[in-house]
């Protein structure tokens, strides 16, 4: 099978007040299907830029980005929107749910942009909420849910369109430790079900959930190592 994600010589430079900031400065990275990767690094290391790049929110200044054989670095805005919609599920630190919409409607949003009919949308969204254990909270609005529940809605939203990767940016950063553990359990089990997960974090104990850890420093990959296999929960 082809590589899921292939980054070759990716550079991302910003021009800030006449000074060139090299947020990413020549990154090569291959990510395969069903990997569980964490991306780490101190602030300013290019972690966020890396996540935006993989998440197709940003385009490289230089380099080649292939996503399942599609050349992302050549895409225009509409194509990027489409690839985000079909192939990438985002989980944000601050959940980023739509405050006035119910959990169910929040989960439906990516399906609306995928132009899926109402009845099918509801069916898929209900299934995704069931998968994160929220089938009894579907008609609650975000402010009626706890932080952990909100993040689970966000995970359901990320998964609803069957993306190729789940991109989680500090998914436990805004949660108490108990909810954090819950969320990490869900992510672990999603990986066990065959999903590819990329975690962006600066917490070592979160990164340990992943099978592979990539350390960024000054826009370059400093370290790319296999993490000690965590104990698999085998049914």
């Amino acid at each position, binding site marked *: 099978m082809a590589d899921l994600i292939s980054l070759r010589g990716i550079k991302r430079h910003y021009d800030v007040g006449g000074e060139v900031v090299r947020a990413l400065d020549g990154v090569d990275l291959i990510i395969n299907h069903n990997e569980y990767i964490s991306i780490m690094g101190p602030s300013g290391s290019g972690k966020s830029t890396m996540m935006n790049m993989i998440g197709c929110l940003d385009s490289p200044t230089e380099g080649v980005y292939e996503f399942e054989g599609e050349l992302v670095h050549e895409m225009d805005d509409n194509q990027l929107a489409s690839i985000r919609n079909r192939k990438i599920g985002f989980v944000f630190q601050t959940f*980023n749910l739509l405050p006035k919409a119910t959990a169910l409607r929040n989960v439906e*949003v990516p399906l609306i*942009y995928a132009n899926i009919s109402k009845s099918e949308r509801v069916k898929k969204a209900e299934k995704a909420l069931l998968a994160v254990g929220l089938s009894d909270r579907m008609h609650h609005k975000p402010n009626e849910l706890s932080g952990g529940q909100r993040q689970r809605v966000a995970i359901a939203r990320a998964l609803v369109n069957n993306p190729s990767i789940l991109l989680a940016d500090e998914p436990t950063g805004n949660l108490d430790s108990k909810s954090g553990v819950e969320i990490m359990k869900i992510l672990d089990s999603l990986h066990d079900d065959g999903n590819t997960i990329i975690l962006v974090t600066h917490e070592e104990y979160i990164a340990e959930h992943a099978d592979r850890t990539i350390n960024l420093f000054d826009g370059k990959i400093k370290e790319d190592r296999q993490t000690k296999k965590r104990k698999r929960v085998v049914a």
Partner: protein
Amino acid sequence: MISLFWENLRISLGSIFGNKSRSILTALGIVIGVLSVTLMGTLISGLDRTFEKSMSFLSRDVLIISRMDWFGGDMDWWELRNRPRIKEDYVEQLREKSQFVAAVAPMAERGGSIIRGDKRIDTRFFGTTPEYMATNESADVITGRYFTDGENRSGARVMVIGGDVADALFPDEDPIDEYVKIGSHKFRVVGVLKKQGKFMGMFSLDNQAVLPFGTFQRLFSRRGWMNVRVKVNTDNYDEAKEEIYGVMRQIRGLKPMEKDDFAINQSATMEAQYKAIKLAIGGTGLFITALSLIVGGIGIMNIMFVSVKERTKEIGVRKALGATQSMILGQFLMEAVLICLIAGLVGMGLAGGLSLLINQFFPSSMPVGLAIGSIIISVVIGIVSGLVPSYQAARLDPIDALRYE
């Protein structure tokens, strides 16, 4: 894309009704704009239809020869003042000399009161010949009869009264063969004219009385204000008018270089004058009221900028979830159009109600075209004023938008 349309509609409604007071204030600008434009249009069209209706009493094929132009604004007053009077014998001269005369009648006019017992009405009365009926299509005797040539020649004291006069002096009885007085002169009522309604909704055409010309001249004045009504026997009014100008100049003995010292008026001149006035009033009115719509549109644009700013983060999230630029554009454009559409409908409803109210005093009614037009205008304003903010929203960088707090 249909599901996206419904979603956008839902988002827009949510946003509009979620910020009620803001939406109401914003919409108010458009409501007032649409209200004033629609009302203006309604009044103009009401004026128009009234004019058409009122014009029917001045048939197109009737020329009225008078001392002065109805609309001779640029003439010197002294020149007009010194024009010779229109004389009675012009009637016969015109009949002889012009080949286009179908009917011709003199019309002397004055104001005064008609009295019957303790009832009186201030009115205008005309002295004319029986031929007058042939020069005025809308003048019909509804009860009784018109006076005869014999009565005209002998100066009989008979009178045909208009509907208002009949109503005022004979509220519950048949006026025929009853007597009324003008000053100390006693007249027998022989007929009542059919009602014609109000001219431009302002003064009644039914408040008049018609006397035989001979009687009028004998009892009142030979030197009063007088016109000659000529009904022409052709459709070529211009040709007839030209010829009658010539005949009149000949009657007046004017030399080729001398200016006309009389005027030939026609409903067409009134119509042209009316159109010019309507254009001026309507044009300025619509322009001024359209300004209020533009102000309303600016209000919409302003609030849309606020809405985009407020929802920057949401835009970022939506983009991350796969919304394209055009989808975001559509979402905000929908919101702007929806506010304007709702405001437009409200404004139109108010205008409709108000025009019913105004109709009690002044003729007005809202034409369907205007109603549809004002809705279209609202939508266009929504699009125009929503376009820039929506475009700004669509062009937001998803990363910056997501980071926005």
